[in-house]
Protein backbone atom coordinates (compact mmCIF):
# COMPACT_ATOMS: atom_id res chain seq x y z
CA UNK A 1 0.00 0.00 0.00
CA UNK A 2 0.99 3.64 -0.33
CA UNK A 3 1.62 3.81 3.42
CA UNK A 4 3.94 0.79 3.29
CA UNK A 5 1.46 -1.76 4.67
CA UNK A 6 1.81 -5.27 3.21
CA UNK A 7 -1.43 -6.48 1.60
CA UNK A 8 -2.42 -9.53 -0.40
CA UNK A 9 -4.31 -8.92 -3.66
CA UNK A 10 -5.67 -11.14 -6.41
CA UNK A 11 -4.59 -10.56 -10.03
CA UNK A 12 -8.07 -9.20 -10.76
CA UNK A 13 -7.81 -6.72 -7.89
CA UNK A 14 -4.37 -5.58 -9.07
CA UNK A 15 -5.64 -5.10 -12.64
CA UNK A 16 -8.61 -3.13 -11.35
CA UNK A 17 -6.32 -0.89 -9.30
CA UNK A 18 -4.01 -0.29 -12.28
CA UNK A 19 -6.99 0.74 -14.42
CA UNK A 20 -8.41 2.94 -11.65
CA UNK A 21 -5.02 4.59 -11.09
CA UNK A 22 -4.47 5.55 -14.71
CA UNK A 23 -8.06 6.77 -15.06
CA UNK A 24 -7.78 8.90 -11.92
CA UNK A 25 -4.56 10.45 -13.22
CA UNK A 26 -5.96 11.07 -16.70
CA UNK A 27 -9.01 12.76 -15.28
CA UNK A 28 -6.96 15.19 -13.19
CA UNK A 29 -3.95 15.84 -15.41
CA UNK A 30 -5.70 15.53 -18.79
CA UNK A 31 -3.04 13.03 -19.88
CA UNK A 32 -3.97 9.97 -21.97
CA UNK A 33 -4.62 6.76 -20.01
CA UNK A 34 -2.02 4.01 -20.26
CA UNK A 35 -2.53 1.62 -23.17
CA UNK A 36 -3.78 -1.95 -22.74
CA UNK A 37 -0.30 -3.24 -23.56
CA UNK A 38 1.22 -1.01 -20.87
CA UNK A 39 -1.38 -2.15 -18.32
CA UNK A 40 -0.68 -5.77 -19.28
CA UNK A 41 3.00 -5.21 -18.64
CA UNK A 42 2.32 -3.57 -15.28
CA UNK A 43 0.03 -6.47 -14.33
CA UNK A 44 2.85 -8.86 -15.07
CA UNK A 45 5.22 -6.88 -12.83
CA UNK A 46 2.76 -6.58 -9.93
CA UNK A 47 1.26 -10.09 -10.10
CA UNK A 48 4.63 -11.77 -9.75
CA UNK A 49 5.17 -13.52 -6.42
CA UNK A 50 8.89 -12.84 -6.54
CA UNK A 51 10.41 -10.75 -3.80
CA UNK A 52 12.42 -8.69 -6.26
CA UNK A 53 12.28 -7.61 -9.88
CA UNK A 54 14.33 -5.42 -12.20
CA UNK A 55 14.67 -4.03 -15.70
CA UNK A 56 16.04 -6.11 -18.57
CA UNK A 57 19.80 -6.27 -18.96
CA UNK A 58 20.81 -3.25 -21.01
CA UNK A 59 17.90 -1.07 -19.92
CA UNK A 60 19.59 0.32 -16.81
CA UNK A 61 19.31 4.06 -16.14
CA UNK A 62 21.34 6.71 -14.34
CA UNK A 63 20.59 7.06 -10.64
CA UNK A 64 21.12 10.50 -9.16
CA UNK A 65 20.60 10.80 -5.40
CA UNK A 66 19.51 13.95 -3.63
CA UNK A 67 21.01 14.39 -0.18
CA UNK A 68 23.36 11.40 0.07
CA UNK A 69 23.61 9.77 3.47
CA UNK A 70 21.86 9.91 6.81
CA UNK A 71 24.55 12.04 8.51
CA UNK A 72 24.28 9.63 11.45
CA UNK A 73 27.42 7.57 10.85
CA UNK A 74 30.94 8.90 10.37
CA UNK A 75 31.33 12.14 8.48
CA UNK A 76 29.44 13.65 5.57
CA UNK A 77 32.40 12.77 3.34
CA UNK A 78 32.01 9.14 4.50
CA UNK A 79 28.35 9.33 3.48
CA UNK A 80 29.36 10.30 -0.05
CA UNK A 81 31.99 7.56 -0.23
CA UNK A 82 29.42 5.04 0.99
CA UNK A 83 26.97 6.06 -1.75
CA UNK A 84 29.71 5.91 -4.37
CA UNK A 85 31.24 2.60 -3.30
CA UNK A 86 28.42 0.54 -1.78
CA UNK A 87 25.18 1.91 -3.24
CA UNK A 88 26.76 2.43 -6.68
CA UNK A 89 25.28 5.90 -7.08
CA UNK A 90 25.89 7.49 -10.47
CA UNK A 91 26.12 10.96 -8.89
CA UNK A 92 26.66 12.21 -5.35
CA UNK A 93 25.18 15.16 -3.50
CA UNK A 94 26.53 16.87 -0.39
CA UNK A 95 23.88 18.59 1.71
CA UNK A 96 23.46 20.60 4.88
CA UNK A 97 21.06 18.93 7.29
CA UNK A 98 18.58 21.85 7.08
CA UNK A 99 18.49 21.19 3.32
CA UNK A 100 17.46 24.72 2.38
CA UNK A 101 19.50 27.45 0.68
CA UNK A 102 18.76 30.08 3.33
CA UNK A 103 20.36 28.24 6.29
CA UNK A 104 23.08 26.78 4.04
CA UNK A 105 24.17 30.31 3.09
CA UNK A 106 24.98 31.12 6.71
CA UNK A 107 27.44 28.23 7.00
CA UNK A 108 28.86 28.39 3.48
CA UNK A 109 32.57 28.57 4.42
CA UNK A 110 32.22 25.32 6.38
CA UNK A 111 30.27 23.72 3.53
CA UNK A 112 32.98 24.75 1.08
CA UNK A 113 35.66 23.07 3.16
CA UNK A 114 33.72 19.80 3.28
CA UNK A 115 33.04 20.01 -0.46
CA UNK A 116 36.72 20.46 -1.26
CA UNK A 117 37.68 17.52 0.96
CA UNK A 118 35.00 15.37 -0.66
CA UNK A 119 36.13 16.27 -4.17
CA UNK A 120 39.62 14.96 -3.41
CA UNK A 121 38.43 11.49 -2.37
CA UNK A 122 35.58 10.74 -4.77
CA UNK A 123 35.33 10.19 -8.53
CA UNK A 124 31.59 10.19 -9.35
CA UNK A 125 30.03 13.57 -10.22
CA UNK A 126 29.64 15.46 -6.95
CA UNK A 127 27.29 18.38 -6.44
CA UNK A 128 25.49 20.32 -3.74
CA UNK A 129 21.76 20.39 -3.12
CA UNK A 130 19.10 22.16 -1.09
CA UNK A 131 15.52 23.42 -1.36
CA UNK A 132 14.45 26.95 -2.38
CA UNK A 133 12.07 26.65 0.62
CA UNK A 134 10.32 30.01 0.34
CA UNK A 135 8.52 29.60 3.65
CA UNK A 136 11.75 30.23 5.54
CA UNK A 137 11.67 33.86 4.39
CA UNK A 138 8.42 34.58 6.27
CA UNK A 139 7.97 35.71 9.86
CA UNK A 140 8.86 34.46 12.42
CA UNK A 141 11.79 32.80 10.60
CA UNK A 142 12.41 35.57 8.06
CA UNK A 143 11.76 39.22 7.19
CA UNK A 144 8.70 38.86 4.93
CA UNK A 145 5.05 38.90 6.08
CA UNK A 146 3.66 35.37 6.31
CA UNK A 147 1.22 34.66 3.48
CA UNK A 148 -0.14 31.63 5.28
CA UNK A 149 -1.44 34.06 7.92
CA UNK A 150 -2.51 36.74 5.44
CA UNK A 151 -4.48 34.50 3.06
CA UNK A 152 -7.06 33.28 5.60
CA UNK A 153 -7.70 36.95 6.46
CA UNK A 154 -8.42 37.73 2.83
CA UNK A 155 -5.42 40.05 2.55
CA UNK A 156 -4.65 38.83 -0.95
CA UNK A 157 -2.60 41.78 -2.24
CA UNK A 158 -0.34 41.80 0.82
CA UNK A 159 0.08 38.05 0.51
CA UNK A 160 1.10 38.36 -3.12
CA UNK A 161 3.52 41.20 -2.40
CA UNK A 162 5.14 39.14 0.37
CA UNK A 163 5.64 36.18 -1.97
CA UNK A 164 7.16 38.38 -4.64
CA UNK A 165 9.58 39.84 -2.09
CA UNK A 166 10.50 36.35 -0.86
CA UNK A 167 11.25 35.25 -4.44
CA UNK A 168 13.95 37.90 -4.78
CA UNK A 169 15.53 36.95 -1.44
CA UNK A 170 15.53 33.26 -2.30
CA UNK A 171 17.03 33.83 -5.74
CA UNK A 172 19.85 35.86 -4.22
CA UNK A 173 20.59 33.11 -1.67
CA UNK A 174 20.51 30.28 -4.24
CA UNK A 175 22.83 32.14 -6.60
CA UNK A 176 25.17 33.06 -3.72
CA UNK A 177 25.41 29.46 -2.52
CA UNK A 178 25.99 28.22 -6.06
CA UNK A 179 28.77 30.75 -6.70
CA UNK A 180 30.49 29.77 -3.47
CA UNK A 181 30.12 26.08 -4.18
CA UNK A 182 31.43 26.45 -7.72
CA UNK A 183 34.50 27.97 -6.11
CA UNK A 184 34.73 24.84 -3.93
CA UNK A 185 34.58 22.57 -6.98
CA UNK A 186 30.99 21.35 -7.43
CA UNK A 187 30.08 19.69 -10.69
CA UNK A 188 26.35 20.34 -10.39
CA UNK A 189 23.84 22.17 -8.23
CA UNK A 190 20.48 20.67 -7.28
CA UNK A 191 17.38 22.74 -6.56
CA UNK A 192 15.31 20.10 -4.85
CA UNK A 193 11.66 20.05 -3.85
CA UNK A 194 11.08 23.12 -5.99
CA UNK A 195 7.57 24.53 -5.79
CA UNK A 196 7.01 23.25 -2.25
CA UNK A 197 5.56 26.63 -1.24
CA UNK A 198 3.64 27.02 -4.49
CA UNK A 199 4.08 29.02 -7.67
CA UNK A 200 6.35 31.65 -6.08
CA UNK A 201 8.68 28.89 -4.87
CA UNK A 202 8.89 27.48 -8.42
CA UNK A 203 9.46 30.96 -9.84
CA UNK A 204 12.36 31.49 -7.44
CA UNK A 205 13.91 28.25 -8.66
CA UNK A 206 13.48 29.16 -12.34
CA UNK A 207 14.89 32.66 -11.94
CA UNK A 208 17.84 31.34 -9.92
CA UNK A 209 18.55 28.71 -12.59
CA UNK A 210 18.49 31.35 -15.29
CA UNK A 211 21.09 33.43 -13.45
CA UNK A 212 23.23 30.41 -12.57
CA UNK A 213 23.25 29.25 -16.20
CA UNK A 214 24.40 32.69 -17.34
CA UNK A 215 27.21 32.74 -14.76
CA UNK A 216 28.33 29.11 -15.05
CA UNK A 217 27.76 27.78 -18.59
CA UNK A 218 29.23 24.32 -17.99
CA UNK A 219 27.69 23.63 -14.58
CA UNK A 220 25.18 20.81 -14.27
CA UNK A 221 21.86 22.10 -12.93
CA UNK A 222 19.31 19.63 -11.61
CA UNK A 223 15.82 20.49 -10.44
CA UNK A 224 13.55 18.17 -8.49
CA UNK A 225 9.93 19.14 -8.10
CA UNK A 226 7.92 19.05 -4.85
CA UNK A 227 4.77 17.62 -6.35
CA UNK A 228 2.92 16.83 -9.54
CA UNK A 229 1.01 20.10 -9.64
CA UNK A 230 2.25 23.65 -8.93
CA UNK A 231 0.03 25.13 -6.23
CA UNK A 232 -1.27 28.63 -6.88
CA UNK A 233 -0.43 30.26 -3.55
CA UNK A 234 0.06 33.51 -5.48
CA UNK A 235 -1.92 32.64 -8.56
CA UNK A 236 -0.71 35.26 -11.02
CA UNK A 237 3.01 34.63 -11.31
CA UNK A 238 4.43 33.88 -14.74
CA UNK A 239 7.74 32.74 -16.19
CA UNK A 240 8.43 33.31 -19.89
CA UNK A 241 4.82 34.34 -20.32
CA UNK A 242 3.45 31.13 -18.80
CA UNK A 243 1.28 31.18 -15.67
CA UNK A 244 2.93 28.89 -13.11
CA UNK A 245 -0.05 28.00 -10.97
CA UNK A 246 -1.55 24.71 -12.06
CA UNK A 247 1.32 23.46 -14.21
CA UNK A 248 1.76 19.70 -14.62
CA UNK A 249 5.14 18.00 -15.26
CA UNK A 250 5.11 18.46 -19.05
CA UNK A 251 4.97 22.25 -18.76
CA UNK A 252 7.16 22.30 -15.66
CA UNK A 253 9.86 20.53 -17.69
CA UNK A 254 9.52 22.95 -20.62
CA UNK A 255 10.06 25.97 -18.37
CA UNK A 256 12.89 24.32 -16.45
CA UNK A 257 14.67 23.54 -19.73
CA UNK A 258 14.11 27.09 -20.91
CA UNK A 259 15.66 28.41 -17.68
CA UNK A 260 18.73 26.23 -18.18
CA UNK A 261 18.51 22.94 -16.28
CA UNK A 262 20.40 19.89 -17.48
CA UNK A 263 18.24 17.36 -15.59
CA UNK A 264 14.54 17.64 -14.73
CA UNK A 265 12.97 15.61 -11.91
CA UNK A 266 9.19 15.33 -11.88
CA UNK A 267 7.62 14.35 -8.55
CA UNK A 268 4.30 12.50 -8.46
CA UNK A 269 2.95 12.12 -4.95
CA UNK A 270 1.95 8.76 -3.48
CA UNK A 271 -1.59 8.31 -2.13
CA UNK A 272 -1.15 6.44 1.17
CA UNK A 273 -4.66 5.00 1.07
CA UNK A 274 -4.25 3.28 -2.29
CA UNK A 275 -2.23 0.25 -3.41
CA UNK A 276 1.22 0.58 -4.97
CA UNK A 277 -0.22 -0.74 -8.25
CA UNK A 278 -2.77 2.12 -8.24
CA UNK A 279 -0.06 4.66 -7.37
CA UNK A 280 2.37 3.46 -10.00
CA UNK A 281 -0.29 3.54 -12.73
CA UNK A 282 -1.18 7.07 -11.65
CA UNK A 283 2.46 8.17 -11.56
CA UNK A 284 3.24 6.84 -15.02
CA UNK A 285 0.14 8.39 -16.56
CA UNK A 286 1.01 11.85 -15.22
CA UNK A 287 4.73 11.65 -16.01
CA UNK A 288 4.53 10.06 -19.48
CA UNK A 289 3.85 13.21 -21.57
CA UNK A 290 6.76 14.95 -19.85
CA UNK A 291 9.15 12.05 -20.48
CA UNK A 292 8.17 11.84 -24.14
CA UNK A 293 8.50 15.56 -24.89
CA UNK A 294 11.36 16.67 -22.66
CA UNK A 295 14.45 18.13 -24.32
CA UNK A 296 16.58 17.42 -21.25
CA UNK A 297 17.16 14.17 -19.34
CA UNK A 298 14.31 13.25 -16.99
CA UNK A 299 15.05 11.68 -13.60
CA UNK A 300 11.72 10.74 -12.01
CA UNK A 301 11.70 11.25 -8.24
CA UNK A 302 11.45 7.81 -6.65
CA UNK A 303 11.99 8.45 -2.97
CA UNK A 304 9.74 7.95 0.02
CA UNK A 305 6.22 9.08 -0.91
CA UNK A 306 6.81 9.89 -4.59
CA UNK A 307 6.92 7.97 -7.86
CA UNK A 308 4.78 5.14 -6.54
CA UNK A 309 7.22 4.36 -3.70
CA UNK A 310 5.48 3.94 -0.32
CA UNK A 311 5.32 6.92 2.04
CA UNK A 312 7.44 5.25 4.70
CA UNK A 313 10.90 5.97 6.04
CA UNK A 314 11.98 2.44 5.06
CA UNK A 315 9.95 1.60 1.95
CA UNK A 316 9.67 -2.15 1.32
CA UNK A 317 12.11 -3.42 -1.30
CA UNK A 318 9.44 -5.43 -3.13
CA UNK A 319 7.35 -2.28 -3.64
CA UNK A 320 10.32 -0.05 -4.50
CA UNK A 321 11.79 -2.38 -7.11
CA UNK A 322 8.38 -2.75 -8.81
CA UNK A 323 7.90 1.02 -8.90
CA UNK A 324 11.46 1.45 -10.18
CA UNK A 325 11.17 -1.16 -12.96
CA UNK A 326 7.72 -0.01 -14.02
CA UNK A 327 8.82 3.61 -14.34
CA UNK A 328 11.91 2.80 -16.37
CA UNK A 329 10.16 0.39 -18.72
CA UNK A 330 6.97 2.36 -19.37
CA UNK A 331 8.41 5.88 -19.37
CA UNK A 332 11.76 5.08 -21.04
CA UNK A 333 13.36 7.24 -18.37
CA UNK A 334 16.81 8.77 -18.48
CA UNK A 335 17.23 8.25 -14.79
CA UNK A 336 15.73 8.13 -11.33
Amino acid at each position, binding site marked *: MGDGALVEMTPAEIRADLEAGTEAAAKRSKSPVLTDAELDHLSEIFCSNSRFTGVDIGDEVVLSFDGCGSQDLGTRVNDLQYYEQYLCADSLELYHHDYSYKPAKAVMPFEQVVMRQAQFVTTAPLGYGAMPDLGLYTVPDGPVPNWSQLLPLGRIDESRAAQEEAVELAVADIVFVTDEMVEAGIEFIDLDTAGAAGDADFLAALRAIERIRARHPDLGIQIGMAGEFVLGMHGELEYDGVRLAGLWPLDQARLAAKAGVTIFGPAINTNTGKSIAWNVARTLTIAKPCCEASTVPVHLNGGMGVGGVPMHV*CPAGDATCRASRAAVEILRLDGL
Partner: protein
Amino acid sequence: MEGAHTQASGMGGMRTAGDLVARMQMTRRMRLKEAKAYVAGKLGCTVRDLFDPTAMEEIRIAKGLGTLPFTSSVRPGDAGMIEAKFNISKTLDIPINCVERFKARVGLG
Protein backbone atom coordinates in the same frame (compact mmCIF):
# COMPACT_ATOMS: atom_id res chain seq x y z
CA MET B 1 15.25 2.03 -0.74
CA GLU B 2 18.43 3.25 -2.46
CA GLY B 3 19.67 -0.34 -2.67
CA ALA B 4 16.40 -1.50 -4.22
CA HIS B 5 16.60 1.15 -6.95
CA THR B 6 20.28 0.36 -7.57
CA GLN B 7 19.59 -3.34 -8.03
CA ALA B 8 16.32 -2.93 -9.93
CA SER B 9 17.30 -0.32 -12.49
CA GLY B 10 20.61 1.41 -11.77
CA MET B 11 23.58 1.54 -14.14
CA GLY B 12 25.98 0.71 -11.33
CA GLY B 13 27.99 3.86 -10.75
CA MET B 14 31.74 3.25 -10.73
CA ARG B 15 31.24 -0.53 -10.85
CA THR B 16 30.38 0.10 -14.46
CA ALA B 17 30.04 3.36 -16.41
CA GLY B 18 27.07 4.93 -14.63
CA ASP B 19 29.07 7.91 -13.40
CA LEU B 20 30.38 8.57 -16.92
CA VAL B 21 26.92 8.47 -18.51
CA ALA B 22 25.65 10.71 -15.71
CA ARG B 23 28.32 13.27 -16.57
CA MET B 24 27.06 13.52 -20.16
CA GLN B 25 23.51 14.06 -18.95
CA MET B 26 24.63 16.72 -16.49
CA THR B 27 27.02 18.65 -18.66
CA ARG B 28 25.61 18.18 -22.17
CA ARG B 29 21.90 17.55 -21.53
CA MET B 30 22.16 14.26 -23.40
CA ARG B 31 19.22 11.94 -23.00
CA LEU B 32 20.06 8.38 -21.97
CA LYS B 33 20.47 6.68 -25.33
CA GLU B 34 22.64 9.48 -26.70
CA ALA B 35 24.72 9.65 -23.51
CA LYS B 36 25.39 5.90 -23.52
CA ALA B 37 26.39 5.97 -27.20
CA TYR B 38 28.69 8.96 -26.62
CA VAL B 39 30.47 7.31 -23.68
CA ALA B 40 30.84 3.99 -25.51
CA GLY B 41 32.32 5.85 -28.49
CA LYS B 42 34.83 7.68 -26.34
CA LEU B 43 35.81 4.48 -24.51
CA GLY B 44 36.03 2.46 -27.72
CA CYS B 45 33.65 -0.20 -26.42
CA THR B 46 30.09 -1.34 -27.03
CA VAL B 47 27.06 0.09 -25.23
CA ARG B 48 26.59 -3.35 -23.71
CA ASP B 49 30.02 -3.06 -22.04
CA LEU B 50 28.85 0.04 -20.16
CA PHE B 51 26.80 -1.98 -17.68
CA ASP B 52 29.11 -4.98 -17.49
CA PRO B 53 31.29 -4.62 -14.37
CA THR B 54 33.85 -7.12 -15.64
CA ALA B 55 34.37 -5.35 -18.96
CA MET B 56 34.29 -1.91 -17.36
CA GLU B 57 36.87 -2.77 -14.71
CA GLU B 58 39.41 -3.51 -17.43
CA ILE B 59 38.48 -0.41 -19.42
CA ARG B 60 38.54 1.85 -16.38
CA ILE B 61 41.94 0.60 -15.25
CA ALA B 62 43.39 0.86 -18.76
CA LYS B 63 42.17 4.44 -19.18
CA GLY B 64 42.72 5.52 -15.55
CA LEU B 65 39.06 6.30 -14.92
CA GLY B 66 39.03 4.99 -11.36
CA THR B 67 37.50 1.86 -9.90
CA LEU B 68 35.96 1.05 -6.56
CA PRO B 69 38.78 1.14 -4.04
CA PHE B 70 37.74 -2.09 -2.36
CA THR B 71 38.39 -4.02 -5.56
CA SER B 72 41.27 -3.35 -7.85
CA SER B 73 42.27 0.28 -7.46
CA VAL B 74 43.98 -0.47 -4.18
CA ARG B 75 47.00 -0.97 -6.39
CA PRO B 76 49.09 2.17 -5.97
CA GLY B 77 49.72 2.60 -9.68
CA ASP B 78 46.08 2.96 -10.62
CA ALA B 79 44.35 6.34 -10.83
CA GLY B 80 41.70 6.84 -8.18
CA MET B 81 39.57 9.51 -6.55
CA ILE B 82 40.32 12.99 -7.97
CA GLU B 83 43.18 11.62 -10.10
CA ALA B 84 40.62 9.65 -12.10
CA LYS B 85 38.60 12.81 -12.75
CA PHE B 86 41.52 14.30 -14.67
CA ASN B 87 41.44 11.27 -16.98
CA ILE B 88 37.64 11.30 -17.23
CA SER B 89 37.70 14.95 -18.28
CA LYS B 90 40.20 14.15 -21.04
CA THR B 91 38.54 10.91 -22.17
CA LEU B 92 35.00 12.30 -22.36
CA ASP B 93 36.20 15.70 -23.61
CA ILE B 94 34.27 17.65 -21.00
CA PRO B 95 35.44 20.22 -18.45
CA ILE B 96 35.18 19.10 -14.83
CA ASN B 97 35.00 22.03 -12.44
CA CYS B 98 37.03 20.60 -9.57
CA VAL B 99 39.73 19.42 -11.99
CA GLU B 100 40.02 22.87 -13.56
CA ARG B 101 40.28 24.46 -10.11
CA PHE B 102 42.85 21.89 -9.01
CA LYS B 103 44.97 22.73 -12.08
CA ALA B 104 44.68 26.45 -11.45
CA ARG B 105 45.60 26.14 -7.78
CA VAL B 106 48.72 24.08 -8.42
CA GLY B 107 49.83 26.11 -11.43
CA LEU B 108 48.89 23.58 -14.13
CA GLY B 109 46.11 25.65 -15.68
